[in-house]
């Protein structure tokens, strides 16, 4: 009889247990292989099939890349060189076309002596977005950001310096009226500012530009929209669309949640209509129908029209992405903002949107990437996009007739680099915001 045992149910630990290493075979590469690739007969089979498919792909495509020819003046010459080097029936890429025509992929038909202008604009783009995107960029640089659109338009299209300056003056004027009248009520201020700016743009800006240009002709060579093509066109449309569709999407998302029936219905109809219609339809509207609706004689630039349509298209998608972010916020955030006396716009700007946008980053960036790739659809309205417009033009040259895969590979690679960069940036941003908050 061990009744001492029965009395010792009470237990006090006098030493804490030390940590021990996991048993061998439970970690490392072998474990990973066994668990992920060979965990059963079916998985083993899948692994082997996968390896075989990968192998076949490489065997099939590697020679095409490896036999690539850079030094030739026509597709015929390329083929001759490949047959010469690798025997009859050997395949190979003819990169020589890219060596000869890369500038058309990048700049379209932009005058080559003016290539510095798009290049400078592209460099300035990073100066403009730097302070918004990266913490290491000094915050003072931000004064350049609002000026960038005017600088960019002037550099790309050229013309009189007075045009961007006087358009900028219109915005400054509207803002000045807004802040002056805004003291007597924000709605009154906003309407007054908008009315003054619109009147200025409709009636004053044109004559003023002519007047200033006559008095002091300063300007750079004008380049017509028809000369834009390739990635210059794609990036112009893409950046323009991205920059304008984010604010438009935010406003639509808020509008959809508004208590005001008119604003709410407008937002819903707009979003559902745009999402329900293919982008190509909208592009045809931009290129053909707008001409019928606009007063005769108005010359409404085709790139501007397409940017507006692309913006509307992306804005509808972004609005829905942001609506998801807004819905994910707990009710308490709105209540706390209300209880502290913040008005609607302050609550949105300081409390709600920073959190909703953070949640929406992956969706917003997906929309941006999709929109950037969709800019290639402008080929259907006669613009020279890098994916089909430019290659078709190059194939029209007798020397490069029949070249098919190389332009796709080249253009695809550039698109991939740009889009992958966007994707990585969005992940970096998510991580940074995550780190900040915890």
């Amino acid at each position, binding site marked *: 009889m061990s009744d001492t045992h029965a009395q010792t149910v009470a237990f006090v630990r006098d030493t804490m247990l030390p940590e021990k290493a996991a048993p061998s075979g439970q970690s490392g590469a072998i474990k990973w292989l066994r668990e992920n690739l060979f965990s059963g007969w079916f998985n083993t089979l899948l692994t082997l099939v996968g390896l075989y498919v990968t192998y076949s792909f490489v065997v099939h495509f590697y020679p095409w890349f490896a036999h690539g020819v850079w030094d030739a003046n026509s597709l015929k010459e390329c083929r001759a060189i490949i047959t010469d080097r690798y025997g009859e029936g050997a395949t190979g890429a003819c990169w020589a076309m890219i060596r000869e025509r890369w500038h058309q992929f990048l700049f379209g038909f932009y005058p080559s002596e003016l290539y510095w202008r798009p290049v400078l604009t592209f460099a300035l783009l990073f100066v403009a977005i730097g302070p918004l995107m990266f913490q290491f960029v000094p915050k003072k640089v931000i004064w350049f950001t609002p000026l960038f659109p005017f600088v960019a338009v002037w550099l790309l299209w050229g013309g009189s310096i007075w045009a961007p300056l006087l358009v900028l003056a219109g915005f400054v004027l509207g803002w000045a009226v807004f802040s002056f009248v805004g003291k007597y009520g924000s709605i009154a201020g906003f309407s007054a500012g908008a009315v003054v700016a619109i009147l200025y743009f409709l009636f004053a800006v044109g004559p003023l530009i002519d007047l200033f240009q006559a008095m002091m002709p300063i300007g750079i060579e004008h380049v017509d929209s028809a000369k834009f093509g390739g990635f210059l066109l794609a990036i112009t449309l893409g950046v323009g669309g991205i920059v304008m569709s984010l604010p438009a999407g935010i406003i639509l998302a808020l509008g959809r949640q508004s208590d005001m029936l008119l604003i709410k219905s407008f937002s819903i109809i707009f979003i559902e209509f745009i999402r329900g219609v293919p982008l190509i339809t909208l592009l045809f509207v931009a290129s053909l129908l707008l001409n019928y609706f606009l007063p005769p004689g108005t010359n409404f630039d085709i790139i501007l029209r397409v940017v507006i349509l692309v913006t509307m298209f992306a804005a509808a998608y972004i609005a829905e992405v942001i609506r998801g972010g807004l819905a994910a916020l*707990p009710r*308490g*955030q709105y*209540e*706390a903002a*209300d*209880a*502290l*006396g*913040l*008005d609607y716009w*302050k609550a949105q700007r*300081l*409390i709600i949107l*920073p*959190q909703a946008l*953070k949640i929406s980053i992956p969706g917003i960036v997906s929309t941006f990437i999709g929109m950037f790739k969709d800019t290639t659809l402008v080929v259907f309205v006669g613009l020279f996009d890098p994916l089909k417009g430019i290659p078709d033009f190059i194939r029209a040259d007798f020397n490069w007739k029949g070249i098919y895969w190389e332009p796709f590979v080249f253009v695809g690679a550039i698109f991939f680099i740009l889009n992958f960069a966007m994707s990585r940036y969005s992940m970096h941003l998510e991580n940074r*915001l995550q780190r*900040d*908050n*915890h």
Partner: protein
Amino acid sequence: MSEPHFEREVDRSHMQVSDEVAIQIENMNKWYGQFHVLRDIDLTVQRGERIVIAGPSGSGKSTLIRCINRLEEHQQGKIVVDGIELTNDLKNIDKIRREVGMVFQHFNLFPHLTILENLTLAPIWVRKTPKKEAIETAMHFLEKVKIPEQADKYPGQLSGGQQQRVAIARSLCMMPRIMLFDEPTSALDPEMIKEVLDTMIELAEEGMTMLCVTHEMGFAQAVANRVIFMADGQIVEQNNPHDFFNNPQSDRTKQFLSQILGH
């Protein structure tokens, strides 16, 4: 019935109730759709009063205090806060919200801002306080709730009790004349309840007008000068805490008290 106890000695020297009316609610009714949540509520709160509102869940006690700063809209009757009547006029609502602080069950701190930014946001953007001054005020109240060292952290890095104390400090930074507490300790672990209640007691000792929905009967006993018992959207009984706990009148009150104090 065992009377609730509260270990802390409460200094009642400043807890003077003045004749001035802080909140006047007359014949107020509210519906959610067809559901009659609040029925004929009449309540007058003097400046400096500490009122605890108790009652079973679904009795409308949270809804009642949320009507006072217009987080919920009432459909009938009259609510006057600090001499301003609550109507659909947004200016009046904003004025009242500036005078009335609120502490929520789930703290509702802004997770994307640091503690200090949480505290200075409303003073800077609503009261237009200069930033430097707002920071000084914020640090003063953080010291008061005994967590000045957490100023630069984010809410997610704090314990529940600390977060709720920050939420109290955030309300105080707006210099409110009335504080509403909506079950401030219900989402907290037991060991954190006391630190929040201590903060609230200090506030009471300084003479703040407080309306508090809570199940902490010890707190009611120690601090309140009136306990209101609600059931089915009505005020069923109100009395000073001593009589309320020792000599409840209605059957509903007796039943409620036996359920929450019975063990």
